[in-house]
């Protein structure tokens, strides 16, 4: 039995019979300790899929099984890193994380919790900014706080919804390494949603493209057989990397073109000629 299983998931918003299906027939299984990336176009239903898995919304039909149990509502076992960092602006970095760990570990003493918070802030290299509010931080720093908050809750599985989408390329690279580092150390199961194929290949064991919605469904999976730790600069010359990357991009481009041709209609224009206005003046 897989660690996380999605069976025939369909999701529609609204109640009308003709309401469009955002997701249809999603089947996915993730093993324990695996790092899976789902790659898709923007607007293809990625966030809906994430919210289904972490329990913020429920599926219209089909089931989400986590360790064999039906998912109903959120759980501390599945940590989430949101696309927009979702920090509480009236709390400092430390307070944001403290609030999370306090809820997850109600039995720990105050000093233990503070030590835990300090550890995770240290881990994302934010110790100097510990007592700052989110508005005093850059986007990258905010996202690191969000990463620290999600990891400090010690979830068994970590779900990332385009966590690095809003960051510049350099910061993004650094954070990718940091996330991989932590994942490597604690060997948790991870699900990464991204629109960046390179990021997926660099980080994941398996890449699954999401065919764009409406009626979004998962495409065939691509295994990434590159040894860890992966070296970003060497990766560019790796033939394995190149072929996988090309295959995925080709697949995605194909779907993109298909979608375009699907909606291409021929519009018959009425045969009109402009009147001559000369005579009226």
């Amino acid at each position, binding site marked *: 039995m897989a660690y996380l299983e999605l069976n025939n998931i369909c999701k529609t918003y609204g109640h009308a019979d003709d309401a469009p299906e955002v997701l249809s027939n999603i089947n996915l299984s993730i093993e324990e300790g695996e790092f899976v990336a789902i790659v898709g176009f923007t607007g293809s239903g990625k966030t809906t899929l994430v919210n289904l898995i972490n329990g913020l919304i429920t599926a219209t039909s089909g089931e989400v099984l986590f360790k064999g149990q039906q998912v109903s509502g959120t759980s501390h076992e599945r940590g989430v890193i949101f696309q927009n960092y*979702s920090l*509480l602006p*009236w709390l400092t970095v430390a307070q944001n994380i403290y609030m999370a760990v306090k809820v997850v570990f109600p039995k720990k003493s105050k000093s233990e919790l503070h030590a835990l918070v300090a550890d995770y802030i240290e881990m994302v290299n934010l110790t100097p900014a510990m007592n700052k509010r989110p508005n005093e931080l850059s986007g990258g720093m905010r996202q690191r706080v969000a990463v620290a908050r999600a990891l400090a809750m010690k979830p068994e599985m970590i779900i990332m919804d385009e966590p690095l989408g809003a960051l510049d390329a350099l910061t993004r690279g650094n954070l990718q390494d940091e996330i991989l580092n932590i994942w490597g150390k604690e060997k948790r199961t991870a699900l990464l949603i991204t629109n960046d194929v390179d990021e997926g290949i660099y980080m994941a064991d398996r890449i699954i493209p999401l065919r764009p919605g409406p009626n979004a469904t998962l495409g065939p999976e691509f295994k990434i057989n590159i040894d860890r730790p992966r070296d970003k600069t060497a990766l560019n010359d790796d033939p394995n990397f190149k072929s996988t990357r090309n295959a995925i991009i080709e697949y995605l481009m194909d779907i993109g073109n298909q979608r375009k041709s699907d909606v291409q209609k021929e519009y018959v224009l009425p045969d009109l000629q402009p009147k001559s206005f000369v005579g009226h003046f």
Partner: protein
Amino acid sequence: MKQSITLGRVSKFMGLGFLSTLKDLFTGNLEREDFISFLRKVIVPLASILLFIGMWHLGAKALYQREANFKVEKALTDQGPAAADEMKACIASGDVSCQPNTLPAPSQVWDSYKSLLKDHNAISADKAAFKEKTEVLNTERIASGLDPITYTGRPSFIDQIIMSLKTVFAGFLLALIIAVPLGILIGLSPTLRSAFNWFIQIFKPVSPVVWYLLVFMIVKTILIDSTDDSSFIISFISVGLCSMWATLVNTAMGVSSVDKDYINVAKVLKLGPIQKVFKVILPSSLPLIFTGLKITLSVAWMVLIAIELLAQSPGLGLFVWEEFQNGANDSNSKIIVAMFVIGIIGFLLDRIMLTIQNAVSFNKNEGI
């Protein structure tokens, strides 16, 4: 890192930025650009104040002249040239009995201000003397179970200002105690929202005078066997009821429109309902709640005058009304003094609330 508190920060925070410019002027590190902003922030307001006083002076003079001419003309037609000359001489001599009664000039208002202060000092001295005189007697009376003798002379202008401030703060507190919890409940529950909606929509626009009458009807009956003066109670309740609506509506709106991201955080952390309210919903709606409270305080101060006037509560409203009824020679200028005092206190109250509001507010997109 803790930010140090400097004059510049504090004054900027309170919207009194010119203070730091003034400091720079005296310490001599003023740049050219700063000088232009100094001109704009200090010289221009000062000049406009002077211009205002000048126009007021000229206007008052013209009105005075018109009224004086009318009086002389009237004496001429009613009683003949001799009476007209007499009236002219009387006006010129500054005799109190025949002065034109119109808009007072700035200098008269300033004189009235000084005389009100003098009056206050006299009354305070009188009070102190009274206290001294009755001290022995009062301790005896208290010892034998009687009420002490209290000062029953008229209140001074300062006493009336303090009374007004007391009334407005009591009313503000009442509004706070009613509107904030109620607003939170309404904001949290769509059912309560639709239950209260008609109530808010209908009572929000009701005029202060009508609120006063309503409160009067109820409080009068409740306190029917009390002999104490109920004017303070009636006026502060009316002020509170008039002014609470802004807070009620803003709180309900703030609570019901919390950013979805914050709600998602609360869900992912699996906060309980009470924790969710206190850790996520309330902090995120604090800025709107304080905006409401700021409006409430300024509305409370504005309606206070009318309500005190009706309730005969010995505050500024009653002062204005009594001076108007009084019709003494300096009554008009005392009314203008009261007008300025009301305006300045209202401005200060607004600044205090703005400072508190700035302290608790945050940019909505900061965490995202």
